[in-house]
């Protein structure tokens, strides 16, 4: 066990030496890896922030139920009763046509309202629903539509649904981008390790003659690629934090303009760890493939 550990520590030391031996080259590689990882990471975080924002703004989705223009008080009471009894409905708020008109007036359209010959607005109910399963809204609205006196049902959650669909699409795009860039990183690492093996051909050959096993020869390459990946992952994190930092103040200003308080969130501990771990894994994968391809001894 301690022997195994010793061999690994030695291989890691060797990998560090190789990294340090060409500081500029190593730095450029790390930067390339960092930027390649930062792109999808930023995309993921921005989408996550937008989703959070959307959730905050929409709150509990509402259903507006508009009655016929000539609805009598009896019809209003009946609808009210049935809504209160419905097990899906959470809250019910009645907005009379007079109230609705006042609201319209207050919203700055007083000129328009004054020009109207009569109140064009119907009585309405605003209903919130238990849970946030979109199927519940659909089912409820379909049911309510058939009731006597109900003219029109409008799902206020529609734009939220659309936004969610859009976010899903964007998420898929980010995932595809991440896969593409991950593939590119594996290819880059594959080539880096290939070049290292070429320049160390002589040393590898001599080591073999002196009794070096395959794992002994391969280990430093694995370590090199993993360490480079880890450094690239850290560089990506720094890039992400810079991007979030730059966007923070404009976002807060924008949110304030809408009377909301909103701060962009950066990657949390788990996400940061996952990013660095993923980068190390990609490095390992690239080096493993390269070592398999270029370091398998041809036995005669």
């Amino acid at each position: 066990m301690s022997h195994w550990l010793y061999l690994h520590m030695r291989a890691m030391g060797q990998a560090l030496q190789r990294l340090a031996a060409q500081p500029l080259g190593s730095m450029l590689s790390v930067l390339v890896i960092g930027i390649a990882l930062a792109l999808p990471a930023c995309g993921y975080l921005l989408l996550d922030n937008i989703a959070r924002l959307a959730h905050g703004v929409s709150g509990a989705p509402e259903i507006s139920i508009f009655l016929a223009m000539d609805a009598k008080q009896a019809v209003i009471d009946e609808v009210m009763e049935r809504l209160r009894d419905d097990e899906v409905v959470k809250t019910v708020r009645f907005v009379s046509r007079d109230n609705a008109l006042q609201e319209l007036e207050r919203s700055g359209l007083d000129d328009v309202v004054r020009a109207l010959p009569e109140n064009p607005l119907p009585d309405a109910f605003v209903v919130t629903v238990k849970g946030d399963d979109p199927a519940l809204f659909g089912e409820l609205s379909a049911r309510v539509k058939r009731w006597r006196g109900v003219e029109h049902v409008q799902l206020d959650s529609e734009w939220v649904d659309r936004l969610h669909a859009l976010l899903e699409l964007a998420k898929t795009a980010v995932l595809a981008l991440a896969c593409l860039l991950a593939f590119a990183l594996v290819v880059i690492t594959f080539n880096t390790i290939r070049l290292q093996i070429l320049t160390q051909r002589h040393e590898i050959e001599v080591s073999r003659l002196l009794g070096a096993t395959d794992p002994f020869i391969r280990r430093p390459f694995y370590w090199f690629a993993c360490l480079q990946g880890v450094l690239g992952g850290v560089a990506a994190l720094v890039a992400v934090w810079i991007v979030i930092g730059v966007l923070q103040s404009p976002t807060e200003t924008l949110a304030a303009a809408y009377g909301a308080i909103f701060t962009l969130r950066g990657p949390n501990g788990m996400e940061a760890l996952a990013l660095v771990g993923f980068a190390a894994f990609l490095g390992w994968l690239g080096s493993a493939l390269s070592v398999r391809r270029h370091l398998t001894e041809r036995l005669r």
Partner: protein
Amino acid sequence: MIVFEHVTKRYPGGYTALADVSFTLRHGELAVLCGHSGAGKSTLLKMIAAIERPTRGRVLINGQDVSRLKPSAVPYLRRSLGLVMQDNRLLHDRSVFDNVVLPLVITGHPPKEAARRAAAALERVGLAGRGNERPIGLSGGEQQRLAIARAIVNRPSILIADEPTAHLDNAYAVEISRLFKSFNAAGVTVLVTTHDAALFMTNRPRRIILDHGKLVVGDGA
């Protein structure tokens, strides 16, 4: 103990470098392998270290059939041998010390012990205190001795060397041959190829002579 049983080596391309070679080298023996250039001396040594495999026949090292060794077992065979190749195979971008200590690093010796043994090996070949130099700064004879130090640092029971005295002035060559004789005196089985068998004659070594891949003298094989 090294045993060759009807060993034939045909290189890809069809050239027969060794033809039906049989001999036995007992533990603690000193043998000189002679023959013209191209006779198959290097090929024979490479077969002992499993660098080449026999086309036919068997090579046994301490009872183990090297010709049928799994690839994963080859490194462990090589660790039990001391190997000095024809071109000394030094790492010129490393220090003298790093070169000598490499076999011990490969076998995973603790650094302190490895350093101690490497220093002892350098002293043994007359390179004490030269550890921090680069091989390129050493003379031809010193480089050869460095290669020998690297070969013995693992305390092998068998030492094989391919023309260790080639390209050396006579004085250096004598020095090198003395080294091998002293290792042999300490119980190491030594097999050396050379153009100049006279260098080793004071010890009445076994003589193995190859001619165009055939064994012409085996001295009682």
